[in-house]
């Protein structure tokens, strides 16, 4: 078997035996149950209120009955975006950390590199194995959520909805790969595991929370007069600067496309299929770009990095 594939298979096997990884995976799946339960309960409540209102209006002999609220099935899964953004990113950081720095610190890499294994084969194997781990995890989450929609939500998703969820899963994979490759790159570059973990998490906090908040701060408020009571509401509006800042955040991209694919973003129900495909592909490219950059930088450093085998 190809050397990289041997390494990839070992990575895959070891990840699914790792207690921390399994705990976070179970957390991910557990949150999915909670999310679907809360989502479907909320939607049922909305429908119940609507039905009660209609019944009440009909009893009063009202001539105009309000139209039923537009409830998209996938909005039940809207929290999935946040779980990927938070739990998924941390999981990817842990995988990247385990892949290299732990072995580097323990001397395990020496065992591999004293064999007829080239450094690029090692890195490719690690990348392939951990990508397969993340893909498997997300596939589990995808199937699990579809099943939950039926069991808890009592809804059979359409083929189109399943395709949207699947597309979101692919986007989630691209998003998590960023943090995997960041963590792997730092593991190659640095010699201290705690530092790698800390910097990886700091980067995640920066791009997930700080950058979007900076973008929010650059938004302008536009005044809108409420047509019912005449009150003036302030509604934040994107500016060129806030949009430019948001573009730096992979998490913003994930949330943005997540809102469109899972149909919880305002106006997502009226986006045409062509526009959605275009947005999805653009997001995919934007998310894959940093991954490609970190992989290239990682290969470059890894080929020359002798600190892998130096005694601390």
């Amino acid at each position, binding site marked *: 078997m190809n050397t990289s594939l041997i390494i990839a298979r070992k990575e895959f096997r070891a990840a699914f*035996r790792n*207690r921390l990884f399994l705990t976070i995976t179970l957390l991910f799946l557990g949150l999915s149950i909670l999310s679907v339960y809360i989502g479907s309960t909320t939607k049922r409540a909305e429908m119940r209120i609507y039905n009660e209102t209609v019944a009440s209006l009909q009893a009063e002999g009202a001539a105009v009955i309000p139209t039923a609220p537009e409830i998209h099935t996938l909005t039940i899964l809207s929290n999935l975006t946040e779980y990927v953004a938070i739990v998924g990113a941390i999981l990817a950081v842990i995988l990247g950390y385990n892949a290299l720095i732990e072995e580097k610190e*323990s001397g395990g890499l020496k065992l591999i590199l004293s064999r007829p294994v080239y450094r690029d084969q090692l890195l490719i194997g690690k990348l392939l194995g951990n990508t397969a781990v993340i893909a498997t995890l997300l596939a589990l989450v995808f199937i699990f959520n579809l099943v939950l929609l039926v069991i808890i939500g009592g809804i059979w998703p359409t083929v189109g909805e399943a395709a949207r969820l699947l597309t979101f899963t692919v986007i989630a994979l691209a998003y998590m790969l960023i943090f995997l490759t960041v963590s792997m790159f730092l593991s190659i570059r640095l010699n201290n595991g705690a530092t790698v973990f800390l910097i990886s998490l700091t980067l995640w906090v920066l791009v997930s929370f700080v950058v979007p908040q900076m973008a929010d701060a650059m938004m302008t408020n536009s005044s809108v007069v409420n047509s019912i009571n005449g009150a003036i509401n302030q509604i934040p509006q994107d500016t060129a600067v806030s949009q430019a800042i948001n573009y730096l955040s992979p998490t913003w991209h994930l949330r943005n496309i997540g809102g469109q694919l899972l149909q919880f973003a305002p106006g997502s129900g009226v986006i045409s299929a062509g526009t959605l495909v275009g947005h999805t592909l653009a997001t995919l490219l934007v998310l894959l770009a940093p991954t490609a950059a970190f992989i290239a930088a990682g290969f470059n450093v890894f080929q020359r990095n002798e600190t892998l085998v130096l005694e601390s």
Partner: protein
Amino acid sequence: MTTPAIETHELTRKYGEKTAVDHLTLTVPRGEIFGFLGHNGAGKTTTISLLTTLLLPTSGSAQIFGDDVVQQNRAVRQRIGYVPENVRLYNDLTVAENLRFLGELSGVQNADGRLAEVLQLLEHPEWRDWRVGTFSKGMRQRIGIAQALLHQPAVLFLDEPASGLDPEGQRAIGDLIVRLNHEFGITIFMNTHQLSEAAKLCTSIGIMNHGRLVVADTLANVMRRFPDTPSLEEIYLQVERREAQNGRVPAAVGVA
């Protein structure tokens, strides 16, 4: 003339300004158990890293069974087995999974059959399906040696193999090293701090001091050169004291 197992010529490795291995010229014939002695930071581990192709030399050369460690590193890697100090395998995997993985990386055909043979050699075939995470240090060290034997190497590099082990563990490792050498003809190159272990196991020794080889010969010859010194430990301490007093490195004794 038979090609020696290990041969270095003016092998040097620098880390910035610091010279970790300084013009090391050494020959280890086939079939030896060579003990590489020296204080912490003497350059022993760096030497092993150079000989196992993990580090590139700054200058000089080294051959393993005639193959150059830089130019023919792949061939060298096929011939050597390496056991680092404090072997840390994959705790979440079983012994068989660890060994199969490392065996496959070494190109071992029928890895399952070979790992069974190696575990038999350790006299612990029952360890096969045990998780490595549950192992004591001594057991890990033995599995560390097992992983290095999978591809039937001609020379085995051991970095402090008995470090931190209890007397029973030390004896088990020592017995295994002797068996590997006697029964399978494997040349052993062993870094060690444990002079009693070296005196008991090794057929030849080298003493490193601040990157330079100051003594290298068969154990019997070394003992003859220091007739007033009863033990290897005393010889080692005498050499170290002399180095410290002179502040210079004397000519190497008996370097082949």
